[in-house]
């Protein structure tokens, strides 16, 4: 015998459960068989004990006392959370204020009646969802529940009491609860209490006794409640055993597979399967096989299917959609694969003769299931309200009409061809042509028209080609056989063609999904920038799902903001932003088609990456969107996963880029510091030295020396000023704080002002200026371009011998103004011509040299104007620094006629 070891998966799941449980609040359910057994009272009593001596912070979220005196008195002394008042169709409704509860954050919150359905306009449809959110926030909850509100027992309760319960709680919630306390009361006592008016107020009491509180009902409900609790305890015990490797009643990983269908009775089937699974300690698998034919089910069916699949999940089961040609084969195959030993399937509801026409799913299943047990459970029509007949789509009817017309036309054409082409003697050929017509109709127009064509073909064959001609009468029995064979062949062909079409459709559908997934993953992989990613995702989502898209990502402050929103989808003031926030915080989908905030305009899906949450995807459905469809949802989840990880990748890349930039900036700062500290210290040292020797009483006495010292100090101070100015300019350029205020200005003017400013330092040099009078005005920022000229002139004074001439020339070429500052110095060597514009680069130590920023600043300023700066060798020796400034069209200014006339008037 092989020793059983704890299943690693199961242990892992248990660890996860443990982890979640430590962060989650603990749920305690006060569980009773019927109203009036004292659940609320018991809960309040327990809460008072918890809160006694301020041991725990207990707050009453919502408690219904139903006007019962003793219950009401228990509330006194406990802190009450104000209720939220909602108005729906003029009726005031009071609900648990979920946000207030989350904000108040008590240790323990009391929430009565777990199965309650919230008023429209609340965040969640059901109160148990509110409780889930409160638990997720780490708050313990006490709540009450009656046995008839458990989802899996819904049908049983309906059978016992004849009352269909609409407010239900998923069994998963019940099973996950930390503790379930049964509040039990013998039936006699309950009835006694009811009579005394302790349960309902007297006027309601009589009616309630008649309907629900019959003794038989109550006994059955009590048994149900106790049994369900026992089951839970049993499961706990098994959990303990599993965790400790005790093998006595090892659960064999058995699974119960239930065949889910769009049928309205399928829900019942699922609940029955769940009960079976529970009693067998087995897992529940809900399976739907999508066959090619099923691709064409109505949208009402689709919705019901989605609902049934959700039911499986809410009952703690796993829902799976499979795609295959043959539903029965696939179901059995999957059951084997997943080790399911029992298949639950509904009893057929169609009439018996139907089985002759097409093979029954159930029959197939029975034949193919072999060792797997098959449970056929009654759909019991009548108990569950029949769904409204799905409205037939007009489009389909018109299509059928077209198909019918086509069938008639094709048969007429093939008859005519037979008639004129072959005549009455070549019957075999005529039959072949008729069959060809049926094939054509079947390929082009589908099953029903092709059946029609088959009938018509037989009839026309009878009418035109067999004796007696032009009569439906049949004279020869052999012809009758021909008719039957011909009809059967036509029908078989139609069926085959239909199936091929179906397979093709199914393949196309699958192909579409695969192709779209492939396309999006490839494009997302190729995209780097976030915006490109978002646009790519948007395009694919729109094409595949027919939705309009908005993507919300956390901004710099961590708050969600719309990173991408198609017009008409989302704006920041939108109330749907609240839904997005909720999705972001809870990492659960919400909005249209979900149970959370279903009144929102969009479906909000969390985008997750491998490292955690990334953002929120908002999908605004349009008419052709079918997001309720489980397959579409699966596809959407895959899409969301792809988009999430692509966005995460983009974020990581961005972070890496920033880190690199930071490192570079850091390095730059260091080299700046080392360079600047030297360059700043030298003039400072000179100023300090010169002035201190002047102050020294033993310092130089003669006027000439003192004056020389003063001059030196003054010059060095001016140099310091230039250094600081350059540093500041550089900082501003790098910080992007440089604002270029362009105006149309004459070059001559800015050259003039730069020369004026440099007057002292240019003394003793000849400066030639060549500025044509017809030079147009150029758009530039005069203060900045003056700075460029000053830096160039300063460099010239620093790096060329004193007294050598300079020249400033301006001209226009190719839509640019070209300005040149040329000298007759040693020039700039070829390898330095680029580097002189680099930061802190100095070709050589000039007299009164700077930090090596002057030309870098020039380049920054010129670039900010859209121009270019470079250095060339000047013909005849020396360096020629040139820069361009783009001209704008029509820079020649026409004189203002108004101005002249004003002037003449003024005279």
């Amino acid at each position: 015998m092989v020793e059983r070891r704890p299943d690693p998966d199961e242990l892992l799941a248990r660890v996860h459960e443990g982890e979640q449980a430590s962060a989650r609040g603990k749920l305690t359910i006060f569980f009773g068989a019927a109203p009036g057994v004292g659940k609320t009272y018991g809960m309040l009593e327990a809460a008072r004990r918890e809160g006694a001596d301020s041991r725990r912070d207990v707050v009453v979220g919502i408690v219904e006392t139903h006007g019962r005196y003793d219950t009401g008195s228990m509330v006194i002394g406990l802190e009450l959370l104000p209720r939220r008042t909602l108005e729906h169709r003029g009726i005031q409704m009071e609900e648990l204020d979920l946000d207030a509860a989350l904000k108040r954050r008590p240790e323990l919150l009391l929430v009565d009646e777990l199965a309650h359905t919230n008023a429209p306009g609340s965040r969640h449809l059901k109160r148990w969802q509110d409780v889930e959110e409160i638990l997720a926030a780490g708050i313990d909850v006490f709540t009450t529940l009656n046995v008839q509100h458990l989802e899996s027992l819904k049908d049983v309760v309906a059978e016992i009491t004849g009352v269909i319960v609409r407010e239900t709680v998923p069994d998963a919630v019940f099973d996950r609860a930390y503790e379930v306390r049964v509040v039990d009361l013998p039936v006699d006592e309950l009835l006694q209490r009811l009579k005394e008016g302790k349960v309902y107020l007297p006027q309601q009491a009589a009616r309630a006794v008649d309907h629900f509180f019959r003794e038989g009902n109550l006994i059955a409900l009590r048994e149900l409640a106790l049994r369900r609790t026992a089951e839970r305890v049993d499961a706990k015990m098994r959990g303990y055993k599993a965790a400790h490797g005790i093998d006595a009643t090892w659960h064999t990983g058995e699974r119960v597979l239930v065949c889910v269908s769009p049928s309205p009775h399928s829900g019942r089937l699922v609940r029955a399967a769940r009960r079976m699974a529970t009693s067998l300690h087995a897992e529940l698998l809900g399976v739907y096989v999508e066959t090619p034919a099923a691709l064409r089910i109505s949208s009402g069916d689709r919705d019901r299917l989605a609902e049934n699949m959700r039911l499986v999940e809410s009952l703690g089961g796993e829902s799976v959609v499979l795609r295959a040609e043959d539903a029965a084969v696939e179901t059995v195959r999957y059951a084997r694969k997943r080790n399911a030993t029992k298949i639950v399937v509904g009893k057929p509801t169609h009439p018996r003769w139907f089985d002759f026409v097409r093979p029954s799913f159930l029959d197939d299943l029975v034949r193919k299931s072999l060792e797997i047990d098959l449970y056929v459970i009654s759909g019991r029509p009548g108990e569950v309200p029949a769904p409204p007949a799905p409205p037939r789509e007009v489009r389909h009817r018109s299509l059928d009409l077209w198909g019918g017309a086509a069938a008639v036309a094709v048969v007429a054409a093939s008859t005519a061809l037979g008639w004129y082409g072959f005549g009455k003697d070549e019957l075999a050929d005529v039959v072949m042509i008729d069959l060809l017509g049926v094939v054509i109709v079947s390929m082009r127009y589908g099953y029903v028209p092709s059946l029609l064509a088959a009938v018509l073909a037989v009839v026309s064959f009878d009418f035109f080609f067999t004796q007696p001609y032009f009569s439906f009468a049949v004279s020869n029995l052999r012809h009758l056989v021909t008719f039957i064979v011909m009809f059967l062949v036509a029908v078989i062909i139609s069926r085959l063609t239909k199936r091929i079409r179906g397979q093709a459709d199914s393949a196309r559908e699958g192909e579409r999904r695969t192709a779209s997934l492939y396309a999006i993953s490839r494009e997302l992989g190729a995209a780097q920038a976030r915006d490109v990613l978002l646009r790519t995702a948007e395009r694919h989502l729109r094409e595949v799902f027919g939705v309009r898209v908005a993507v919300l990502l956390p901004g710099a402050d961590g708050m969600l903001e719309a990173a991408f929103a198609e017009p008409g989808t989302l704006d920041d003031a939108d109330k749907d932003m609240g839904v997005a926030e909720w999705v972001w915080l809870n990492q659960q989908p919400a909005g249209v088609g979900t149970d959370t905030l279903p009144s929102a305009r969009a479906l909000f899906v969390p985008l997750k990456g491998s490292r955690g949450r990334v953002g929120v995807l908002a999908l605004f459905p349009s008419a052709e969107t079918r997001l309720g469809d489980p397959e579409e949802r699966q596809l959407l989840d895959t899409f969301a996963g792809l988009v999430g990880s692509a966005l995460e990748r983009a974020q990581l890349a961005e972070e890496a880029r920033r880190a690199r930039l930071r490192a570079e900036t850091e390095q730059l700062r260091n080299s700046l510091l080392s360079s600047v500290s030297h360059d700043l210290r030298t003039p400072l040292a000179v100023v300090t030295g010169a002035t201190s020797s002047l102050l020294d009483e033993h310092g130089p006495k003669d006027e000439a020396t003192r004056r020389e010292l003063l001059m030196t100090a003054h010059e060095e101070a001016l140099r310091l000023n230039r250094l600081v100015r350059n540093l500041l300019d550089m900082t501003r350029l790098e910080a992007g704080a440089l604002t270029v205020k362009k105006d149309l200005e004459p070059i001559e003017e800015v050259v003039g002002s730069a020369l004026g400013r440099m007057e002292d330092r240019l003394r003793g040099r000849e400066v030639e200026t060549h500025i044509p009078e017809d030079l147009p005005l150029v758009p530039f920022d005069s203060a900045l371009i003056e700075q460029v000229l000053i830096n160039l002139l300063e460099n010239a004074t620093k790096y060329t011998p004193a007294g050598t001439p300079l020249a400033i020339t301006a001209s226009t070429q190719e839509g640019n103004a070209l300005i040149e500052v040329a000298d007759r110095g040693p020039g700039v060597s070829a390898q330095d011509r680029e580097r002189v514009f680099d930061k802190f680069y100095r070709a050589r130590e000039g007299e009164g040299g700077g930090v090596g920023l002057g030309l870098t600043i020039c380049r920054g300023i010129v670039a900010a104007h859209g121009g270019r700066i470079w250095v060339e060798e000047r013909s005849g020796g020396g360096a020629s620094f040139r820069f361009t400034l783009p001209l704008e069209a029509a820079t020649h200014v026409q004189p203002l006629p108004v101005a002249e006339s004003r002037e003449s008037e003024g005279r």
Partner: protein
Amino acid sequence: MTEPKPLILVVEDEPQMRKFVRIALESHDYRVIEAATATEGIQQAIAYSPDAVVLDLGLPDMDGMSVTRRVREWSTVPILVVSARGQEDSKVKALDGGADDYITKPFGAAELMARLRVALRHAAESRDVPSAIVRLGTEVEIDLVRRLVRVRGAEVHLTPIEYKLLTALVKHAGMVMTHRQLLERVWGPGHAHQMQYLRVYMTQLRHKLESNPARPQLLITEPGIGYRLKAEA
């Protein structure tokens, strides 16, 4: 000297700067009162009616423009604003708001004295009748009565706008005039933003009066601010 020494109010928050300005001014025979904040400065201006105000634009309690406007509500005292480099906008605002001239830090004592002298003289002249003939440098002569301009003795024809522009500058000789001020004087308030006209006429004027228009000696450009007609201090 029979006239009393001019009284200068220095509004500056940096004590070292204030000290330097005071010493420079006192060594040139000015009397000095000091204020460290704009509020104090306005109070001093009311209390002492100084002959000129040297106003720093970087005061902690109020921006220079507001101070200028407040003073201008009741006084035409010349105001010389002191600013750091790169504050072109606030300079223009202060000048448009009524300040008479500006000087950029760091500045030498000589520069400060020259600016102050022009401002004081201008204040004195505005009370006198302007002389009929104005000489600019050695080469340009303007006959304000006969509306004639001579350069190196030869008469130069100016268009009416050029002439008006020149006279506007002459009236504020030695002091900066902002683009807006010039545009409003010459073209009228409706054209305060059409700077390129001003630039075109300025260039034309320079070409008619200056021997080398690219190195102007009279019509000086103050980038980002306006123009100044250079006058011997």
